[in-house]
């Protein structure tokens, strides 16, 4: 009823206005005297009819738009500044959303949980295929369980990362296919391609189903292409899926371990399931030795690519903070721009106040103005984020070491409701940030002064503006110092001597059964200098550890170890400091001898000659798959000491101590052959003679070395970009504040000059203002960086967060920028002519 009346009123509101105005006029006439504001009475009466807010809203919007038309430069600057910052944050959120928030494209993703049990050391049990089958048959807690193992193999000449999966994989997930059919439990020699692989590698061939592809030279029939959105259940998109049976055929043995993922029974909560699994795991491991008994279970949601856990948050929060700070700076900049406009607005607002406008109404008006700026800024941000993602992806593939670029696949980065929600919230937050403070400040006007025509005396926003500038400088210093720290770390890594001469060396990964033939074929190639077999190629991750007892000692020491053939040291130009390399016979026989690295020799036999000593191996075979390959002997004789080299991830910085045991290309379980050759083509030619797609992967070792510092390079460029942006915003912020200050103090400066102040002292006065703010800001920024430092020392060992040079560089850059920003305003102040300024009033 009331709503209906309101709507009717809204239609005839012109008539209503006229009536009301006449009524009030009459009232005043009869009263014979006017008191109070007729406008206020009108406005309050109008407000009763409810839709008035709508009308006054429309009024405010019209008014704001008119204002923007008058100063388009201001509106454009605000939209561009906020749009850029919003765009960057949206980009980050889109990536975060795609990996951590968006559920994977399967039926009921939230009921999928990865499962393993943990032993007393807290290590998760690694399921074998047999473990998995037993677990599945026991039908505990889950309605069904799948298993998968990641495969890294060449499919028709393209190296890819795919998954070998249990037969029920597609049925359990109910993922469906785009073409053909999914994998079924009875399948063996078949393959399902991902939609992206089908498009990128096979030209979206509509007749692909039924064709035969070679995975590591083993023929598989294509039975289907998965749905475009489906990427499997691992934390990266898979390029293909094959049955576990095909894995055994391709690799010559079933996978050592599989990851197990179950679907909750309908109506069963994760907590109940966890409890049931804990009971089951304890029973299942009851007969095993204590070290292998289950003490707990781990249940991890597989609803998204990367689970939303404390770990994933710990990694992303610093990134979000860095991006958020840029948004904060942008808001601060816009805020101070609005404050700079304030004196002009003050007059207009004073007039409105004296006409009876309420403060709430004025604040609302100013906030609507901010909101009207935020809406196009959000749209601009969306467009910018799209462009940034395209550009970023292309940049990543262009700068990534070639060997990674061919296998790395990123998820589809499409915006969805969550992304739009984020933009909406972020732009609203930005509006409040940049609009509220100026709105409150500006409306703090007193009626009396406004009536007198004096609109400036009450206006003291200096403190707020100073706070904004200090915030900007702080954030800017923090980002630049961080960029400096990362840059120095990257430089340290890239000039670091790995000790292995990687130029001209290729790593060839291929199945065991091809290795002997491949080594022979490669060695017979004319421009191949050397071929070596190796268990774990260096620079591809930390060394495996083995427990040994050195002769003349009783303590067990954990040492990094590897298996290499005799040619390894020559191939990588690693000099032997003492003793000798393996003889060819020792390599072939896998004799009980060992070459130790310099640092290992120092650790095992301090102050003694290592050559001639023996080590006793204490690690038990087979207990833990992590130590899957052990020497067949229990003691080994040290025959040589090799110079230290970097073996694994260089950022761990502690993998130079290594025991080299002999091996040869015929031995099982070596992961790679290393070839020193003049060109990649030579290597490929030799390998093609063995079998189609025999090599999974041919990589250049110098790229592997370069890739060690790649993550740091990426982090540096991102931080440097954010820091640069922050610097630009800060410079314009300081410039704006000082320009405003100079224009406000023109008269005062004029008097000073008239009284004999020199150019130098005027410049000093303005500079002082800027330098004080900049000094406070940089000090705070450096303190923030120091406070954040301990977090990063724990996560990345190569990072030295207390890097004096980085700090000095960041601080210097910010201070220099502050001086630069203050230069022009101070010059203008120095140019003030007292004769003109003093006459103006």
């Amino acid at each position, binding site marked *: 009823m009331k709503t209906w009346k309101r709507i009717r009123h809204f239609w005839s509101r012109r008539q209503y206005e006229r009536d009301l105005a006449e009524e009030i006029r009459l009232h005043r006439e009869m009263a014979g005297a006017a008191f109070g504001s007729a406008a206020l009475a009108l406005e309050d009466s*109008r407000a009763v009819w409810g839709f008035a807010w709508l009308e006054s809203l429309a009024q405010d919007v019209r008014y704001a738009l008119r204002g923007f038309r008058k100063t388009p430069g201001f509106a454009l600057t605000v939209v561009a500044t906020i749009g850029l910052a919003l765009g960057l944050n949206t980009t980050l959120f889109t990536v975060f959303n795609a990996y951590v928030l968006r559920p994977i494209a399967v039926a009921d993703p939230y009921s999928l949980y990865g499962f393993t049990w943990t032993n007393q050391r807290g290590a998760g049990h690694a399921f074998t295929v047999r473990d998995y089958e037993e677990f599945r048959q026991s039908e505990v807690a889950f309605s069904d369980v799948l298993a998968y193992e990641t495969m890294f193999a060449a499919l028709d000449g393209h190296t890819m990362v795919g998954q070998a999966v249990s037969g029920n994989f597609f049925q359990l997930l109910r993922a469906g296919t785009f073409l053909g059919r999914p994998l079924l439990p009875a399948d063996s020699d078949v393959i399902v391609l991902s939609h992206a692989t089908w498009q990128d590698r096979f030209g979206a061939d509509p007749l692909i189903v039924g064709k035969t592809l070679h995975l590591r030279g083993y023929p598989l029939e294509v039975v289907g292409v998965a749905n475009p959105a489906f990427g499997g259940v691992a934390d990266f998109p898979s390029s293909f899926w094959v049955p576990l049976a095909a894995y055994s055929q391709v690799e010559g043995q079933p996978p050592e371990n599989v990851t197990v993922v179950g679907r909750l029974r309908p109506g069963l909560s994760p907590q109940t399931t966890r409890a049931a699994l804990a009971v089951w795991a304890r029973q299942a491991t009851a007969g095993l030795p204590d070290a292998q008994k289950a003490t707990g279970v781990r249940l991890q949601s597989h609803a998204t690519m990367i689970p939303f856990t404390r770990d994933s948050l710990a990694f992303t929060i610093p990134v979000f903070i860095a991006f958020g700070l840029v948004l904060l700076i942008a808001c601060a900049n816009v805020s101070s721009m609005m404050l700079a406009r304030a004196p002009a607005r003050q007059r207009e607002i004073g007039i409105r106040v004296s006409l009876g406008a309420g403060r709430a109404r004025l604040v609302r008006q100013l906030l609507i103005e901010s909101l009207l700026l935020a809406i196009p800024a959000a749209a601009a941000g969306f467009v910018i984020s799209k462009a940034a993602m395209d550009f970023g992806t292309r940049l990543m593939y262009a700068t990534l070491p070639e060997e990674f670029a061919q296998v790395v696949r990123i998820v589809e980065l499409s915006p969805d409701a969550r992304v739009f929600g984020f933009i909406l919230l972020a732009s609203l937050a930005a509006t409040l940030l940049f609009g509220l403070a100026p709105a409150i400040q500006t409306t703090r006007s007193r009626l009396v002064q406004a009536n007198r025509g004096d609109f400036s005396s009450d206006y003291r926003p200096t403190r707020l503006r100073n706070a904004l500038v200090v915030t900007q400088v702080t954030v800017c210093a923090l980002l630049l110092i961080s960029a400096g720290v990362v840059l120095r770390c990257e430089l340290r890594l890239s000039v670091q001597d790995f000790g292995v001469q990687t130029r001209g060396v290729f790593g060839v990964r291929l199945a065991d059964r091809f290795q002997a033939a491949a080594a022979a074929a490669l060695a017979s190639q004319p421009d191949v200098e050397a071929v070596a077999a190796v268990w774990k190629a260096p620079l591809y991750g930390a060394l495996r550890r083995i427990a040994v007892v050195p002769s003349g000692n009783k303590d067990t020491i954990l040492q990094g170890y590897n298996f290499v053939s005799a040619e390894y040291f020559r191939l990588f130009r690693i000099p032997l400091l003492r003793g000798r390399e393996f003889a060819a016979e020792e390599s072939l026989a896998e004799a009980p001898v060992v070459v130790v690295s310099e640092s290992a020799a120092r650790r095992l036999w301090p102050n003694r000659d290592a050559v001639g000593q023996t080590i006793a191996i204490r690690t038990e075979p087979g207990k833990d798959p992590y130590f899957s390959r052990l020497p067949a002997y229990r003691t080994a004789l040290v025959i040589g000491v090799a110079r230290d080299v970097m073996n694994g991830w260089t950022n761990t910085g502690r993998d130079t101590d290594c025991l080299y045991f002999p091996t040869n290309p015929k031995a099982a379980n070596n992961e790679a052959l290393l070839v020193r050759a003049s060109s990649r083509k030579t290597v490929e030619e030799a390998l093609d003679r063995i079998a189609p797609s025999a090599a999974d992967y041919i990589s250049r070792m110098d790229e592997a070395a370069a890739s060690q510092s790649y993550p740091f390079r990426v982090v540096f460029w991102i931080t440097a970009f954010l820091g640069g942006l922050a610097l630009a915003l800060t410079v314009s912020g300081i410039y704006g504040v000082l320009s405003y200050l100079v224009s406000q103090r023109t008269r005062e400066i004029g008097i000073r000059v008239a009284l004999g102040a020199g150019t130098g002292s005027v410049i000093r006065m303005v500079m002082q203002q800027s330098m004080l703010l900049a000094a406070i800001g940089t000090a705070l920024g450096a303190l923030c960086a120091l406070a954040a430092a301990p977090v990063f020392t724990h996560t990345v060992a190569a990072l030295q967060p207390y890097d004096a040079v980085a700090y000095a560089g960041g601080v210097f850059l910010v201070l220099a920028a502050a001086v630069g920003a203050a230069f022009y305003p101070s010059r203008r102040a120095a140019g003030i002519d007292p004769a003109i300024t003093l006459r103006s009033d």
Partner: protein
Amino acid sequence: MGTHKSDSSPDFLPGTLEMLILKTLSRGHNHGWGIAQHIQQVSKDSLKIGEGSLYPALQRLLLNDYVEAHWGVTENNRRARYYRITAAGRKQLDQEKRSFEFLLAGIARVMEA
């Protein structure tokens, strides 16, 4: 009439002004100025109602259908908007009167205790 402290009189308890207007109109239809005058006279000048509170209150009553408005002519032959109480308005007046008396009695008891 002199100066008036405030237009939107904060001296009224919320809703009392509407009650007074309804009471005034229950004696016959009247225009805005007439209502204000009546309340002032009857209260012996202790209640002065400014247009800033009178007209918003009248709008609230109109919106709730407690009064209706129509244009008429005053004794002095001037066009004016007259307000008349409706049946719903009378009911509302009764109810407000009761709750007001109840409230007043309560306040009195507290003040005399």
